[in-house]
């Protein structure tokens, strides 16, 4: 047809962004989809942990039971792993705090020589691929006898937590007005006294959140622990590897729920205090 088509008014492809009703609807749709994507996999795990019998393709278990819970909690391998995990995490957290808080304070307040270079070095652990680092560390552990030891695991866990906590405490200390500390010195307090009377109480919320995250990071660390801790030091997540690989679906599900509980507890408790910068400062547990 040779008839000239009438010029269409230019329709912008993005008209819907400016339409509030359309936008609201799309947002609702998006939120719903995201809730399904995030929530249902977790819900499936919970269902599996209480499933006595669940034959595919039923969407919910055909029989409910607590028997897997009992089996898991009575299994000595499980209780041993729990005990180990909960003895490693506090030690990792305490050691990290002991090393990271002074460093964070120094970076925030004191005239550290080569400060910029040092801060740069503190980013190296994040820049080198983590699993490569763990493998190299394992080689070193073989040579110095730290392979398959408690302290070997503790020191490995500290790689991530130390960097994270140093950045957080540096930011926290920096956010405290230095005049507050000077005022304490002026009133006659020694540097140490000024730190503990004035700086520490004000930095405490940040330090507590950072410690909780360090605790969780240690509790959840699996890949490095698998490399340097086997065969004698099996933490909860490492045990979960084997449970998953052995296809004992309900057992692994129970164990997963058990292992996720501490973190979820923190999520509920800490959501109010959770400043985004704590997370943004480098907590990517991939």
């Amino acid at each position: 047809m040779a008839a000239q088509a009438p010029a269409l008014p230019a329709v912008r492809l993005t008209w819907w962004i400016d339409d509030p009703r359309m936008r609201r609807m799309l947002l609702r749709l998006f939120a719903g989809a995201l809730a399904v994507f995030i929530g249902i996999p977790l819900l499936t795990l919970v269902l599996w942990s209480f499933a006595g019998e669940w034959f595919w393709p039923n969407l919910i278990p055909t029989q409910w039971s607590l028997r897997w819970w009992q089996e898991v909690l009575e299994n000595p391998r499980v209780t041993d792993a729990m005990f180990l995990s909960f003895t490693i995490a506090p030690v990792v957290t305490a050691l990290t705090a002991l090393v990271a808080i002074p460093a964070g304070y120094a970076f925030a307040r004191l005239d550290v020589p080569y400060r910029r270079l040092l801060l740069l070095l503190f980013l190296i652990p994040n820049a080198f691929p983590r699993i490569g680092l763990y493998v190299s560390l394992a080689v070193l552990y073989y040579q110095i006898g730290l392979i398959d030891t408690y302290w070997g695991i503790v020191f490995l866990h500290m790689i991530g937590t130390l960097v994270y906590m140093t950045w957080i405490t540096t930011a926290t200390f920096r956010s405290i007005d230095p005049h507050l500390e000077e005022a304490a010195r002026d009133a006659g307090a020694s540097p140490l006294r000024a730190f503990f009377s004035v700086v520490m109480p004000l930095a405490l919320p940040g330090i507590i959140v950072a410690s909780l995250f360090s605790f969780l990071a240690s509790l959840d660390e699996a890949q490095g622990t698998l490399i340097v801790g086997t065969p004698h030091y099996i933490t909860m997540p490492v045990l979960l590897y084997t449970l998953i690989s052995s296809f004992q679906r309900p057992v692994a599900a129970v164990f997963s729920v058990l292992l996720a509980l501490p973190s979820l507890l923190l999520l509920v408790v800490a959501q109010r205090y959770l400043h985004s910068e704590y997370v943004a400062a480098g907590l990517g547990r991939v």
Partner: protein
Amino acid sequence: MAEVELRNVSKVYKDTVAVDDVSLHIRDREFVALLGPSGCGKTTTLRMLAGFIRPDGGQILIDGHDVTDLPPERRPTAMVFQSYALWPHMTVADNVAFGLRLRKLARNVVEERTARMLDVVGLPGVTKRYPSQLSGGQQQRVALARALVLGPKILLLDEPLSNLDAKLRVRMRDEIRRIQQELQITTVYVTHDQEEALTMADRIAVMNKGVLQQVGDALDIYDRPATAFVADFIGSSNLLSGTLRVAGASAVAEVGTARVPVDADGLADGTAVTVSARPEDMEVLRAPAADAFALEDARLVNFGAYKRLLGRHPAFGQLEARVPKSFRLDNAPVYVRFTRARAFASDEAPADITDKAARDPARNR
């Protein structure tokens, strides 16, 4: 008895001299204001007095004792910070009592002294509250009480009123002066506000770019500025460049074709000078006259109690004169003549002098 002496004190940051060879003697019970634009080194000087910054050269003496190397906790000084620096996690009482408790005084002594000091600063009955529950003026008083409760020999104040609104600032000004008089305490007060300095201090030390320009009482500083910077920074001044002509006891500056009578202590005939005259030392004429400058684009600015006549001179730029509030402008030309002026050797370029808000890279921290 508490006097302070700064002897050739200097502080150098990487590429700038923040405080350059400052010597200053502060007498017992004296109230001295350190006055200058931001970045002039006044706060650095104060912080060296308090012990937060260690000078790179010179000595600081309190009552004849060298305190240059003492940390702040071992100096008999107490500081009130610009931000007040009240500890947000302690109540007002705990803030004030902190230093007393460090000295392991008996509980009842601590309580009694805290209460008395809060009385002195006019803030009884807020002991249980936290700093965040107080107004700016109240926080200011708490900071003052906290500094004074230890009975320091020297009180140091760093722009303490800059965070208050104008009305409150005037009230706190009188209040701080009253407390200082009552306690008879030697005080060093840092400010960039000349009105504060002029109304509160016994003596004023004017600083610029790390250098002490002049020390004197309000009248000295205003009427007999020692440098062109002081003349310009305190009050307002008309600044012109000219050449000095000395004939016996009298001196005049030749500014273009006009001759301006000047005070010029000790300057030689023929010196290139900067002439500085206060707006109130100008005569406004309706007809051309000898030594008068014609004003172009003349306009009036009303200040309530008086007016200012502003205008431009083709060669010398903006000029201003203070005129009575009854003064009116019509379309007839106006002329101004300097009745009194001071001359300064102009090795300081006028442009440099008028750079009031000189941004110094080594900002006071």
